[in-house]
């Protein structure tokens, strides 16, 4: 597939170097279908006015209107135009490739099929199914709309380039418009490509992040707390709704564990690659001798599935359900808000715990829901069609795998051991700047899937 061979943000770098001084606010057209209509008449018009301006402006240099236009004209040398033209060509090719690899023809066929189903009079006999059909239909339509917009946008830019060539003179406003159009378009293509990488069945859902302090005592508990903050900050940056639903504090500092629910589209898709063991190396503030220390924390990611959508039946005898209850004689003798529930799926040893709800039954329902979500994800990862086919031994190895190192001392480096992606800007990473890691992992994963198909 061509998607991945393209550099991301190709236009941004070119125009970054040009350092455009856009004194007039640029208009980035939104309704692009109507762009040609609305803008082409004004296109020729503005061309003329701009030309006439130029002649007038040279005559009266003190006119304040000239300042911007004049210097911009000089900046927009012919080579800039060539570079824009080349950029438009590259983007046009990228749009073509994207449309092709997205299977535009198939999508149109799918719409026809879905519309047929949606029109069926028996549609609402099964409301859940109907909902599914309608939401798929909306998704596919949205996708086609985006792909169509890509084409109109790049055609708009091409029109500007052609017009400029024919007129044999330069209109800065127009060229800037084309440049910004291409820039925005490339960003949109980046985003589209990323969502293309997120095609797993649960990628669109929200996510549950659970963090557990691992080996390393207080230092590890502090590390778990740092990770908690990192993911909350990441969620805020993405404008996701994040909620810490459970947090159990460490004795001295930090946390033993925490659970965050992240609501928003594609949260699971982005975060799914974060699961695994995160390792920190630093001069620990909790180490009396100030020695370098290594600690670990585990991160688990599960999709946040609406209760009714989890359609899995697990035989009761496969479940081991334990309730925490703090000692004593129990019953009327004790009153503690200890309602934690822990469920183990015996065949796979997959375990979940739920403590945040205020009644035991509520915790049990929620824990069971999480367990099902986790099993569904594992089944999908292992390409198993049923929960029964999950290989339990593989789960443990995979979910505990060390995925990333965060070195604070003796040098600063965050490095993902799977993709090799690294940065020395550890402060930003701890502030939730995770996107480069997430993107490189998603691409890495995508390439892996491609290679297993070959």
């Amino acid at each position, binding site marked *: 597939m061509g998607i991945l061979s393209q550099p991301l943000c190709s236009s941004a770098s070119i125009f970054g170097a040009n350092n455009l001084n856009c004194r007039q606010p640029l208009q980035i057209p939104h309704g692009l279908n109507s762009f040609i209509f609305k803008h082409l008449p004004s296109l020729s018009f503005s061309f003329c006015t701009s030309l006439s301006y130029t002649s007038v402006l040279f005559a009266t240099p003190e006119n304040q209107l000239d300042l911007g236009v004049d210097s911009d004209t000089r900046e927009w040398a012919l080579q800039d135009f060539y570079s824009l033209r080349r950029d438009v060509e590259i983007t046009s090719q990228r749009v073509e490739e994207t449309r092709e690899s997205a299977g535009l023809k198939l999508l149109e066929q799918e719409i026809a099929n879905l519309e047929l189903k949606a029109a069926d009079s028996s549609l609402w006999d099964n409301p859940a199914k109907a909902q599914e059909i309608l939401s798929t239909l909306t998704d596919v339509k949205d996708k086609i709309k985006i792909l169509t917009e890509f084409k109109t946008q790049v055609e708009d830019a091409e029109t500007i380039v052609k017009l400029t060539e024919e007129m044999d003179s330069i209109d800065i406003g127009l060229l800037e418009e084309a440049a910004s159009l291409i820039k925005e378009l490339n960003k949109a293509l980046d985003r589209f490509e990323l969502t293309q990488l997120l095609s797993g069945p649960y990628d669109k859902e929200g996510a549950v992040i659970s963090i557990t302090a691992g080996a390393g005592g207080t230092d590890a508990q502090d590390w778990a707390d740092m990770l908690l903050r990192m993911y909350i900050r990441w969620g805020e940056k993405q404008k996701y709704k994040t909620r810490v639903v459970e947090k159990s504090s460490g004795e001295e500092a930090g946390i033993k564990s925490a659970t965050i629910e992240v609501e928003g589209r594609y949260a699971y898709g982005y975060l799914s690659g974060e699961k695994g063991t995160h390792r920190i190396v630093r001069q620990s503030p909790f180490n009396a001798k100030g020695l370098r220390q290594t600690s670990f924390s585990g991160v688990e990611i599960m999709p946040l599935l609406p209760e009714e959508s989890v359609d899995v039946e697990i035989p009761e005898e496969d479940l081991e359900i*334990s309730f925490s209850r703090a000692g004593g004689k*129990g019953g009327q003798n*004790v*009153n*503690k808000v200890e309602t934690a529930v822990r469920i183990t799926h015996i065949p796979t040893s997959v375990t979940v715990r739920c403590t945040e709800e205020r009644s035991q*039954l509520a915790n049990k329902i929620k824990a069971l829901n999480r367990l099902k979500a986790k099993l569904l994800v594992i089944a999908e990862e292992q390409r198993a069609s049923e929960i029964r086919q999950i290989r339990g031994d593989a789960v443990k190895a995979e979910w505990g795998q060390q995925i990333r190192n965060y070195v604070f001392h003796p040098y600063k480096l965050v490095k993902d051991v799977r993709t090799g992606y690294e940065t020395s800007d550890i402060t930003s990473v701890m502030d939730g700047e995770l996107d480069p890691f997430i993107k490189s992992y998603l691409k890495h994963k995508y390439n892996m899937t491609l290679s297993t198909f070959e």
Partner: protein
Amino acid sequence: MKLSLGSLYRPSRFPLLLKSYPISRSRRSFCVSSLSSPETSLKPQIPLFLRPPIYSTTLSDLRKWHDWAESLASSVGSTFEKSDNGPDSSLLCRELKWLLEDAVEDHTLVSQMGVENDRRVRMRAHVDELYNLWKQRIQERRPFQYVVGCEHWRDLVLSVQEGVLIPRPETERIVDFVSDVVSKDQELKRGVWADLGTGSGALGIGISRILGSEGRVIATDLSRVAIAVASYNVHRYGLKDIIEIREGSWFEPLKGLEGKLAGLVSNPPYIPSKDISGLQAEVGRHEPRVALDGGVDGMDALLHLCDGAALMLKPGGFFAFETNGEQHCRALVDYMENNKSGSFCNFEIIPDFAGIERFVTGFHGKAI
């Protein structure tokens, strides 16, 4: 709701049984005497989370309170746990989070504490009251459920207040037993069930929701506070057509239903009198003794219930009782086998989730 009152009532039976338990009886008669002014019906307290959000405070003031409350909770450490198996700091912090949830109208704003300090939030209690409530929680060991006025139990949120036992998570299981039994026997599902000593109404309400619209439940209690609170909870869950709250001691309000009950459940007082003083402070100092103290060996009410069950249950009727543990369960089964020989069958002793043998269940009459 209409119940047939046709069958024979033997008035001598119950007073006779009650006479043999002077301690609990004298305590109860005190309560009964207070019932004698029927003109004022007790008004139950509204749980915090249902009160109107008529107060308002800034996020920074709320945060100030929260930080204070958190440090108070942390200062407890494990001292309560060591002295009487009370809650430690981490459990108290969990309660604090829930108190905040109940007190703040839109608790998604809570995560903004420390970010948008001037923002005002609407509250269901004044901040000053929150200081008081948390002081009561930590210094007086007032149970969290009384502080917020509710307990989350199964899928219910039940109103509770001083004078009513706070339903325990263990007791949730009894509803599961009933659910299992009625799923196998439709006739039991359509019969009349009784929850004796209902307290907040937890078991009665839980069972009503299992039985559905065909079911009938009578929940009884001696305490007027319990009657008021249970009625409030029944009303809140819209179960007035299924469950009827009746005031009185154990079987007294069930006159005329002898041999007619499809099922009987109870979580009666079962703690031996000598153990009461050593209980966790939240329980011993604040919960009603009448709901906890089961007499010298804790079996007074349980034995009384067994006697009554033999009389009240119809053939094939089901019973489930909660007990203080293994010894109680054995003693109860022994008592029923020896003293009520033939009237009960299919006994089962079922452990709670902590592995303590907690419940005795069985059937009346014919073996199944």
